[in-house]
């Protein structure tokens, strides 16, 4: 477990980056708005980054214990099904998926 200074460093870095991302565009709004590159990135980036994060977090979760593969797969299916069939309610999907996983990992 890392030390206090590490956590503080993460927080400070996080604050700097997050605030910069939110604030800088207000200052350079015009060039950003006109930029084709920015527009293209806005279109292309989100789904890819989110997909990478999804697979990465799944992999981290499974790596912790190989016995988690089946619960992870089942819970993933449950989450996807709940989201697509249940009206895209984030809380519901996340809740059901997590609940499925916790139950399977702890009881089975």
């Amino acid at each position, binding site marked *: 477990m890392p030390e206090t200074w590490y956590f503080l460093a993460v927080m400070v870095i996080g604050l700097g980056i997050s605030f910069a991302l939110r604030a800088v565009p207000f200052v350079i709004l015009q060039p950003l708005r006109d930029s084709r590159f920015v527009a293209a990135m806005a*279109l292309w980036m989100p789904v890819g980054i989110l997909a990478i994060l999804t697979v990465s977090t799944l992999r981290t979760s499974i790596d912790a214990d190989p016995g988690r593969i089946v619960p992870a797969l089942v819970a993933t299916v449950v989450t996807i099904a709940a989201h697509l069939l249940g009206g895209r309610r984030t809380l519901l999907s996340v809740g059901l998926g997590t609940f499925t*996983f916790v139950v399977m990992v702890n009881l089975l």
Partner: protein
Amino acid sequence: MIAGVTDLWSDQRSSNAPGLDLFDQPGQSDQPGHGDEPGRFDQPGRGDEFSSWESPGGEPAACAEVDSETALASPAALATPPAASATAPAALVAPPVMPAAPSAEPVAPSRRHEIATGIRLSFAAGLGMFPIGVAFGLLVVQSGLPWWVAPGLSIFLFAGSVELLLVGLMVVGTPLATIALTTLLVNFRHVFYAFSFPLRVVRHPLARLYSVYALIDEAYAVSAARPGTWTGPRLVAMQMAFQSYWVGGGLVGVAIASFLPGQIEGLDFALCALFITLTLDACRSRREIPSLLLAALAFSLALLLVPGSALFAGLLGFLALLVARFLFISRREPADA
């Protein structure tokens, strides 16, 4: 539909500077129903693009139910213009919601009323933020991190999904460079919020600073759902309400965790589930498939070549592939501006 929005937006480009004080006029507020009067606002005709934008073919995600995390995917995901070229800057800032005509409200309401309204408007999204905040607090403690990391992250970063992500990264002592890159990429969507976030209605410099700091997905989504209706107190009150739900939820989660007899294994799956839903929300059409394929390629290569820092390398590789894609497309269609 999109073509019309494009025209409106290109007319307005010259007048925009939401971050400056040029448009601060005492007593001025974005009042409902006035969006159609050009010149009434600091951005002439700004209300028009919303009220004349009748049925965008429905991205109701952030409209009816301001779901906390779907807002993440909404702005950029909804910037997929069916007709216009993908490079049209206007598409970038297409409002993420289908706005109903703003309901008529009393003119020039008191500050207290505005604050109350702001808080009331935060309820819908707050309903999702609080439980996820609790889950976050639980996760922090159960991962073995010190309890103060939960409110610490929530105050320093104030960005739900990246905070959840960082918990897992911090536990294993991920290098700060990876943390920085991950934060940059996951929060990158915030860059696009400035375009249509009504910061200009917030006049006090400190309040303005806070409003920028607290420009989270939910704040953006709720503000974009009711364009032209925001005043400084209302906006900041809403954002402060969000922060209290989030930080409060985290603290409650931390408190609950201290009472739990043992570990509840598997809570970290909440993060995976969250990202699954966010990806699903971001991927709403076949146009997203090339990006998905590039991401899959980048991450697979990263797993093969640098399994120890697959996330970092995968994200970087994906960005590089996107840049290459942009250059390739620009070269092919130089006249398409």
